[in-house]
């Protein structure tokens, strides 16, 4: 009985916060745009059977016809993928240094990684506008030390989007990798060296494979939200930055075309299900391996 309740809680959670909203969005994606409140038809007011008989897949067909959409999907995938790799390249050395730091420093370092979460995400992204803009801190600094003669255009380019994503999601990369490296038994590295590995070789053959689960978890935790990211590309990106999150937003609020926007959201979710399932598998395997 208690078991049943314990199992029921997460399922109820999933039902209320994921499946029901998804069903609503899915239903809207099958509806037609209308000048009404709500801005789509049919609704349940028309009677359930009547409503169901009027639903169709025409919005999904529309998405395949206008190449804006699939280009936005591809471009989002590309940006998310590149940012994930960049975040990994920045995050891994930081996590490694933290795990190697003297024991008494580690809580402080961990604190510093989490500290940015104490201020609003929006404010932090705006701060980057101030740093990266033509008259921003970065350009002024570079001009001052004389590396450049004219301000660099960083803001409103994809570079700014990458910087924004790497900055924002770095803690999600660092924390799982740090957790994996922290658990790593130092005598394994010694054993590898004892058996003839150089430091670097031991790192490749022992440290990296043993932090693999942390790397995978970190990559998914960055990739999944980055794919649907909206705030960063709209604040830091330019007109050339095509991301599905932005398209979705415009469809909803500028075009007020809820059915198409919902169709975009449903497809995005389907794309995300693949990495989410892979992520779950990885976590599960980790539990089964007893580590």
């Amino acid at each position, binding site marked *: 009985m208690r078991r049943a309740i314990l199992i029921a809680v997460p399922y109820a959670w999933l039902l209320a916060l994921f499946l029901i909203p998804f069903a609503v969005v899915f239903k809207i994606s099958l509806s037609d745009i209308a000048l009404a409140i709500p801005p789509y038809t049919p609704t349940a007011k028309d009677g359930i059977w009547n409503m169901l008989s009027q639903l169709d897949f025409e919005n999904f067909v529309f998405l395949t016809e206008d190449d804006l959409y699939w280009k936005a999907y591809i471009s989002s995938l590309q940006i998310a993928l590149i940012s994930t790799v960049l975040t990994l390249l920045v995050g891994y050395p930081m996590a490694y240094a933290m795990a190697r730091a003297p024991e008494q420093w580690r809580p402080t370092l961990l604190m510093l990684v989490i500290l940015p979460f104490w201020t609003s995400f929006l404010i932090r992204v705006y701060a980057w506008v101030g740093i990266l803009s033509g008259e921003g801190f970065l350009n002024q600094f570079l001009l001052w030390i004389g590396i450049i003669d004219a301000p660099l255009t960083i803001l409103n380019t994809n570079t700014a989007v990458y910087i924004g994503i790497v900055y924002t999601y770095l803690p999600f990369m660092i924390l799982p990798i740090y957790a994996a490296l922290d658990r790593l038994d130092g005598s394994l590295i010694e054993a590898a060296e004892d058996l003839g590995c150089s430091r670097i070789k031991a790192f490749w053959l022992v440290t990296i494979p*043993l932090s693999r689960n942390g790397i995978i978890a970190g990559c998914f935790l960055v990739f999944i939200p980055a794919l649907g990211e909206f705030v960063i590309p709209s604040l830091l990106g330019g007109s050339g930055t095509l991301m599905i999150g932005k398209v979705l937003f415009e469809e909803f609020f500028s075009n007020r075309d809820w059915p198409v926007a919902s169709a975009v959201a449903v497809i995005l979710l389907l794309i995300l299900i693949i990495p989410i399932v892979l992520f779950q598998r990885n976590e599960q395997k980790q539990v089964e391996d007893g580590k």
Partner: protein
Amino acid sequence: MAETVFAPWDDPTERPLIRFRNVTKRFGDFTAIDDLTLDIFEREFFALLGPSGCGKTTMMRMLAGFENPTDGAIELAGQDIAGVPANKRAVNMMFQSYALFPHLSVWDNIAFGLRRESKDKAAIAARVEEMLKLTRLEKFARRKPHQISGGQRQRVALARSLAKAPKLLLLDEPLGALDAKLREATQFELMDIQEKTGTTFVIVTHDQEEAMTVASRVAVMDEGRVMQVATPERIYEAPDSVYVADFIGDVNLLHGTATPSGNDTYAVTWAANEAPVQAASTRPLSSGQTCHLAIRPEKVAIHKDKPEADNAVQGKVLDIAYLGNLSTYHVELPTGDIIKAQVANTRRISRRDFTWEDPVWVSWTKTAGVLLAE
């Protein structure tokens, strides 16, 4: 031709393979190794014995290259090895914690070191198979370390360190988790490998019997210092301190004062109302020097009636410890001291001569014990 005894430590022309010269190792203000000077010779099977925390692992880690001495120098084949990184030393270590790679199978763990030095797949495979066979792990080759038992893991660690056939092999408690039979078999395997390959072994063990069985020499350590280095027989028969006598095996200790009473013989006054006991000693003692007389229980005999012996004391049986092949009688003397006498159980237990509370005599010869000056 008479076979020469293997005793390079007695040969002044012999150059040691490993030489610790006044090595001190401190962790912060804690001294783990205290001014240690020690020679280990090629082809030796050198056992380190000592209580937990006395610095055995630390010594090995310095040899393997994971710690550097705070003071002093370690020489390997005449070369100071300070600064030579672990991967450049012809030394392999079996870790006390095994340090098996959890992401690799048993097979790959054993092959790990071989892959670093050779590209020849077939040779590596042959060597790994040989090691698997030696440690009886053939059936587990494909498993990961977390899928095998503790004793099997220990054997994997042993196989991995043996695989490269290094010049010097450091084994930190290599057989502790094995059952008695397998342990004995593995001990003989180790000695066999040593005979065949001429590898020098330094082995840490908590098992004295193991040290006695396999070692060419034994070092008894205490709190970072070496108390005595000698062959197993000498460590057992001629300990040079109370600490060593007490640490190795069982011992009766009588505290008293020595008075010379003849050629290399001393009378030890150990209790006011008892006659002094006679003991031979090659180490000279001054008259009136306080000392301990250490006698192994198996050198003490037990009798119903007063025996004709160099030393005999009366007491009563306090306790009998039955060990299967042997029995140890704890005999309480009138002074309150307890003397242990060990007797082989040549008869069935129901027919033994003495039982609890029986008045008995214990006796030993002049040369049975060792006189240790304070």
